[in-house]
């Protein structure tokens, strides 16, 4: 094993101080992604700053928002009564992810920061622009069944693998970030990036920043919602395609609607055009189908993932159907 220094800290301030001191330092949260990447030789930090003892685990309501600490475990968030009652879409999305054991240690911050599951990225003997710039994209003409159909670049067609983040982007969450210069907020939808010509960057977190938590506005989407994850086995598998769907409905008219997709892009993919179309319309199968078609504009397959061009709209329709029939 490549040696590294293990540091433990109990405040966000000291964690950030340690981070900026060393270019090659990384935060260690649940470790469920970072340790795997270290074992595979994909990353080799010289310092691990264990932030598990930093008190950022709280889940609470402040005014009209739910605040979630970056170190709350995926299980703690999914099971919290506030989340189940006010943001059940988030609870469902979390429970669709990984396995119970992983969710028990995985944290909110770590989940947002988790890296793609592209097999070429994980195998240091293979070409991968994300891991090692300029080596080429192994997936482009290789095994790309799991890969993106939206917003792809010539350099990288990987997907962001998180389930939680799909719900968060749908729920208009905000991310609270901190650095030595203080705190700032960022819309969740702006947190992750497309690969573009910087495939090595997954998100817009700056090198000297720490994720402190999330703020999510309370909404009227707790009745008609569904997180539908299509995968190769019934649990403990990443999404082929997933859809977070929620709407507020009155007299069968859609007042507010949120749609986001996972497993299709380098970032959580919000379906703005489909939402716009559905708003004010009847919650009917016909409208769902049209919304799904609108979502597919600009979709592009790479051979192995061509089936997503059909699966994605189908999953949108089915998620909307299931959200409608909830009540």
């Amino acid at each position, binding site marked *: *094993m*490549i040696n590294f220094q293990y540091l433990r800290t109990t405040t966000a301030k000291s964690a950030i101080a340690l981070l900026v001191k060393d270019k090659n330092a990384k935060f260690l949260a649940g470790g469920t992604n970072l340790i795997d990447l270290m074992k595979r*030789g994909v990353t080799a930090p010289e310092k691990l700053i264990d932030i598990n003892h930093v008190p950022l685990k709280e889940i609470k309501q402040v005014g009209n928002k739910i605040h979630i600490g970056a170190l709350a475990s995926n299980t703690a968030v999914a099971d919290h009564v506030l989340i189940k009652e006010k943001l059940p879409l988030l609870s469902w999305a979390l429970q669709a992810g990984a*396995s119970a054991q992983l969710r028990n240690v995985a944290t909110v911050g770590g989940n947002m920061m988790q890296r793609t*599951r592209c*097999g*070429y990225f*994980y*195998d240091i*003997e*293979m070409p991968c622009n994300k891991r090692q710039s300029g080596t080429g994209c*192994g997936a482009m*003409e*290789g*095994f790309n*069944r799991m890969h993106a159909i939206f917003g792809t670049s010539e350099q990288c067609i990987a997907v962001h693998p998180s389930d939680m983040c799909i719900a968060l982007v749908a729920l208009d969450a905000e991310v609270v970030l901190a650095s030595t210069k203080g705190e700032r907020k960022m819309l969740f939808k702006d947190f992750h990036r497309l690969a573009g010509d910087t495939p090595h960057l997954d998100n817009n977190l700056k090198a000297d920043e720490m994720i402190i938590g999330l703020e999510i506005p309370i909404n009227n989407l707790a009745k008609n919602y569904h997180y*539908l994850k*299509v995968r*190769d*086995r*019934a*649990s*403990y*598998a*990443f999404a*082929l395609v997933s859809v977070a769907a929620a709407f507020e409905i009155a007299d069968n008219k859609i007042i507010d609607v949120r749609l986001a997709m996972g497993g299709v892009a380098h970032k959580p993919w919000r379906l703005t055009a489909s939402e716009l179309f559905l708003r004010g319309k009847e919650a009917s199968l016909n409208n769902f189908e049209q919304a799904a078609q609108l979502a597919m504009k600009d979709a592009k397959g790479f051979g192995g993932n061509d*089936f997503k061009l*059909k*699966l994605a709209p*189908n*999953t949108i*329709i*089915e998620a909307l*159907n299931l959200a409608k029939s909830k009540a």
Partner: protein
Amino acid sequence: MEKNMLKDENDRVDGFLKVTGKAKYFAEYELPGLTYGVLVTSTITKGKITSLDTKAAEKAPGVIAVISHLNKPSAAAYEQEGGPQMKIFYTDKIFYNGQPIAIVVANTFERATYAASLVKATYAKETFNTDFEKALKDPKAKKFQGQADYKRGEENAYKTAEVKLEERYFLPIETHNPMELHGIIADWRPNNQLTVYAKTQGVKATQGTIANVFKIPIENIQVNSEFVGGGFGMALRTWPLEIATVMASKHIGKPVKVVITRMQMFTMVGNRPAAIQTIGLGANKDGKLTGITHRAYGETSTYENFTEGVVNMAKFMYQCDNVNTSYVIIPVDLGVPIWMRGPGEATGAFALESAIDEMAHALDMDPLEFRIKNDPETDQQKNKPFSSKNIKEAYKIGADKIGWRNRKNKPGSLVEGPWQTGYGVSVGVFNANRGKASVKGILKADGSLLLQSATSDIGPGTGTGMTLIANKLMNIPVNKITFELGDSSLPPAPSQGGSATLSTVGSAVNDVCVALKSTIAELAANSNMDATANFVDVLKKNNLPQIEITKESQSGKEKDSYSMYSFSIHFVQVKVNSLTGVVKINKIVSVGDSGTIVSPKTARSQMVGGAVGGIGMALTEESIIDHRYGRYINNNFADYHVPVNADVPEIDVNFINKPDPYINPMGAKGMGEIALIGFSAAVANAVFNATGKRIRTLPITPDKILA
């Protein structure tokens, strides 16, 4: 899950040890001075090593030795010409990507792992091919006959039948992936004395292989393998990595432990090879089969040939006067395959049992009815009666329990929202093997019985089965019987494979018990005791602390007179989501027809495990290679999808439980393989019944449903 029909279920004799963590697996042995080996693997697929720089690794902290073809320790058999091509460290040739090329030994596992990353190889690369489809199409590719062509009656008779079909089926590589990682601890002592703690399905086989390679007397080698955390066939041979570990121990004079990584499980310990099969079926309009042609192509390696019984079933499973089969193996630049649960037959049954269903559909017949109509009374291949076969009864039990009457013959008839429901059936069959084994029985005056045999238990519950056989014959309570296995110094027994252990070793247990009983009866008679006297009293009266008998047992003439097979029927009900392509198995009914059920609880576990393996084969498991590089893409448990609990519905296990009058004294036939064989076809057939879509390429993933 439903309760078994059989009563008097006994727990596993080692169940307590297993669930409390007290059962000791090979990697858990802590020998004094133990060192740790990590294998360095090739990163090219074919060619030669031109240089190997081990300097940095040798200098790394804690490193004791780096062993490779540059400093190979002596291994007598490898120094000679001929023999296997893959002589580890005795060749600079690369046969596949991920082949072990060096072993780094250090005083901790972490240090060995790090140092292994410092070994740098350069290669002379050659062009290669890992793509089986491509090899099949390539006229220049080598092809070998895997089994003699078979012909009964007219060849390709299906072509002129009233109703005919010809279809092609593809099975990808599957990897066994037992939970326990493979490896070995080797402790080579002065005077060529060797003790190993192995993960093996055959302690005698491991002993023999090592003795052969190093040319040391068999008695010098002690192999221990009491508990095995799953094998499914991958531990049926001693792999190069194990020889490398023994070499390392010999070289440094210390015990060395190697436990390979999950990724290395894909390249060092075999797999179920990919197969391409075509089935031609012909029938008359009344639904009688008139021709069966089964042609199979199986994958093998370039350095060693591997064959399995892919086309066996077609020769006797159905009444048909015209049958022909062929089986050809084609080398690709991958590691050599090995038998995986239901070897060959599971591959063949997917194709044959899918085709049978397709034919029933073409005839507009109920596939169950079609099978019954073509069920043979005798084995037409061997021209012998079956020793026992209760398939029709099994069909009936299964059909009732799955609710076959609710099935509609027209596909796509049962629809509820996006969900389509379908029913499928298939049959599985495997040779009812019985080999030769010895068992020692020690009957003691304290009322206990100790039984010993160098057999293995990779999970089926061998000790439990043997204990119950003795318990029944001797009337000694189960907790007074001990069955020892997994130790090469015990009386010899074959490896645990081919569903033969219960039949083979159980027969020897039977014979030992019978002999012990008659010895006791004699002793009783000689000492004027009642013939029914308790053995404890008889031994005491004769001042004997114990009596000891060893018996060797094997099959006899019955083998020539009867065709002996175990059978299984699998019924599944599936739901398929027409929008998302998700297939959900809703219910499973499996019926085993394998003679007497000796140990109901572990027998049931076998059937459950087989069904779960079958779900994997049908729906989720596939080892994916990027053929441009010859490397596996999904070589980990996140991406190689073994079924999880959520994929597994209620499994209703049933047994015919009628003794086979000929096979062995217990009337019991093996069932490890039939638990899985055929299962994947039942799922494919159910998916067809649900959707009208015939999927001939496994696994049946959502993309294939939507295609």
